[in-house]
């Protein structure tokens, strides 16, 4: 890479104007947290620089937000669907117009490469609002009954890996179906949700239809346990999902959960090798591996093992790790110190358990949270790194001999979110796709998302689907 070492190509930060502090967005206006709340700081994980101080919502604030959403619910659900649709279309358009700003903001707060926030996250956010906007006046044709009704107030708690995209997945279908929402973004990535609140104001969305309250886990817990909410939607860890499922037991709250995964990416010896290698790389290093559906277990047919591993290592050596705002960066910063510690801990366990660890030579910045793309070979189903979700750029490589063995290993997990298959043989793809216990199966591709395509898990990866016609079901009675 010596000759064509690309010069730095940083995206300009000047397109985004981050205020020194942010309040809560309740009933159409920003305001400080009550005395029950507090403040916290959000940092740029690539530099550890403080980006802003953000209000932390306490119990009273949650009350206020739920009450505002409740007040707004009547008029909002009574609006003709076509009118709700127009608000959503308007929001979608504003997102498109402000896409550069939102992409830079997302990369600053999350640490993901600008290439991804610009080419994946933000375009999908706009697409999601466009898609569900069109459903708002067609709900009775969605296959969920001839007279579908909204549920009421939706409490939505989203993770830090795709902050704005997860917001879109939650808010767009909820609003289209006539619900109002109180959404809590993750503690480490609150900013794009707050910018979204600004977009709601810009779109003249009626006050209370969307409320954004920031805070940590406790705020989220208060929100989902609030007696005034009718629906809880959560994306995050399986452990928290379990707690939420327990907490809504015995209530009439409807619940959808999108939780963890440990997806098998299965490569047969007749795979299109170069594209399979791209798929493996995209499967685990996309978004620093902070992806619940990441292909974190590579299952390679033994007869293709050497070929695949050689090609994979060669490809990994070209990954560009560094400044998220550089347009040529492939792998950005780990989102937080806590997440970095978890990745390190599990990787150390992998090494201690005897798996062989390999990373390409790569220089990591001194400031910020970084972890080099890593693969472990010689991993078996008994290793913790083959069972636990690492949620980082760490790939466990296992082998198999026959399709049956691949299925057995792929399904041998409490999770069931996604899976990958690489082979040029059509009947093999279809048979594998049938037998894999996972909500999304990518054959000869990986980590593809679309607003029309339902997404969600089997088993401990959660329940309910987001996206597509199916995604409306979570918000309709």
């Amino acid at each position, binding site marked *: 890479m010596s000759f064509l070492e690309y010069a730095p190509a940083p995206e300009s930060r000047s397109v985004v104007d981050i205020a020194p502090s942010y309040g809560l967005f309740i009933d159409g206006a920003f305001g400080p947290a009550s005395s029950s709340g507090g403040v916290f700081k959000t940092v740029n994980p690539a530099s550890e620089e403080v980006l802003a101080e953000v209000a932390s919502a306490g119990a009273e604030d949650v009350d206020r937000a739920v009450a505002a959403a409740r007040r707004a619910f009547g008029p909002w659900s009574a609006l003709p669907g076509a009118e709700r649709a127009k608000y959503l279309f308007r929001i979608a358009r504003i997102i498109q117009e402000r896409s550069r700003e939102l992409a830079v903001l997302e990369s600053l707060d999350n640490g993901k490469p600008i290439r991804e926030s610009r080419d994946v996250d933000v375009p999908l956010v706009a*697409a999601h609002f466009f898609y569900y906007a069109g459903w708002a006046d067609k709900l009775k044709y969605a*296959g969920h*009954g001839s007279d579908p009704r909204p549920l009421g107030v939706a409490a939505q708690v989203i993770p830090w890996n795709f902050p704005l995209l997860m917001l879109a997945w939650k808010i767009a279908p909820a609003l289209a179906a006539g619900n109002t929402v109180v959404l809590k973004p993750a503690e480490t990535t609150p900013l794009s949700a707050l910018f979204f609140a600004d977009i709601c104001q810009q779109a003249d969305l009626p006050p209370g239809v969307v409320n954004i309250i920031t805070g940590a886990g406790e705020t989220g817990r208060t929100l989902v346990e609030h007696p005034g909410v009718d629906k809880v939607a959560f994306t995050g860890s*399986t452990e928290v*999902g*379990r*707690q939420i*499922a*327990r907490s809504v*037991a*015995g209530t*009439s709250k409807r619940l959808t*959960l999108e*939780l963890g995964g440990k997806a098998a990416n299965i490569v047969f010896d007749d795979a299109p090798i170069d594209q399979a290698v791209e798929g493996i790389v995209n499967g685990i290093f996309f978004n620093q591996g902070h992806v619940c559906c990441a292909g974190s277990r590579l299952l390679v047919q033994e007869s293709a093992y050497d070929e695949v591993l050689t090609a994979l290592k060669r490809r990994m050596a070209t990954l560009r790790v560094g400044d998220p705002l550089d347009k040529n960066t492939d792998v950005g910063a780990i989102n937080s110190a806590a997440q970095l510690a978890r990745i390190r801990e599990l990787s150390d366990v992998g090494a201690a358990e005897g798996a062989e660890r390999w990373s390409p030579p790569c220089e990591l910045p001194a400031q910020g949270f970084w972890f080099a793309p890593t693969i472990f070979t010689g991993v078996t189903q008994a290793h913790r790194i083959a069972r636990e979700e690492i949620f980082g750029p760490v790939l466990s490589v296992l082998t198999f001999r026959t399709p049956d063995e691949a299925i057995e290993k792929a399904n041998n997990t*409490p999770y069931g979110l996604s899976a990958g298959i690489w082979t040029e043989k059509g009947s093999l*793809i279809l048979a594998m*796709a049938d037998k894999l216990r*996972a*909500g*999304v*199966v*990518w*054959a*000869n*591709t990986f980590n*593809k998302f*679309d607003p*029309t*395509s*339902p*997404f*969600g898990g*089997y*088993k*401990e*990866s*959660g*329940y309910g*689907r987001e996206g*597509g*016609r*199916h995604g409306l*079901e979570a918000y309709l009675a």
Partner: protein
Amino acid sequence: MPKSPSPAKAAKAERSASPAESDRRGRLAVRKTYKLYIGGAFPRSESGRTYLVDGDNVALASRKDARDAVVAARKAQTKWAAATAYNRGQVLYRIAEMVEARRDEFLALGVAAGELDAAVDRWVWYAGWSDKIAQVHGSANPVAGPYFNISAPEPTGVVGVVAPASFLGLVSVIAPAIVTGNTVVVLTATPQVAVTLAEVLATSDVPGGVVNILTGHAAETAPWLASHDDVNALDLTGVADPELATELERSAAGSLKRVVRPPADTPDFTADPGLRPMTALLETKTVWHPKGF
């Protein structure tokens, strides 16, 4: 246990009041023993326990029976799900035929004629859904790219069911679960009717293990199903006690089971069930593949 005389009890009382048929024919009647239905067989409870229901000794299922039933259900599930939808529809239709054929026996157990008709019709209704639900509940998704993308429903797996007390209620929870390829472990408090249905199932080409029926006290066995890691979903339609329902739902969260909560109001099983009883026990799988040469 029901404090007021149940219809079954009344029917039985009637039978005993008149001079027994067998006496008229000069022989003593042979009574039926009501046992559990697990993996296609009719074992006694491994605990050896029975309890008296309307004068009959009925097997009282234990936690180990629940465990065995889950094993049987799991063993049967893959194959049942892999059977063609057409085949599952045929099997359900056969159940309808066999219930109809045993009409007198169900009536004698106190099932009202109208309810029995409705139950037979419900089997027929669900039989027809077997090869249509995927078309109605699936989709071809027009993603913004050169990809083939479809979503199709799949059974969630093994379902633990606390059945409602009526025969129509029982059928209304079993049929939607199994028609799509799930297997069930059913806890019932109406043992004679449920075991008679089991006898129907055993003679209707339903593979052993697809439906397993445990008679006894749901409060005793249901918690074992709720906490069992190899149960994928829990249908609490028949749980009358809200506290028990909450406890079971909370326990089901341990392995993130899909939970069908008890109905808020007294359920009207004669109404059109809609798709929910089936879709609540289905997973949606979405498959992507690139298109190109």
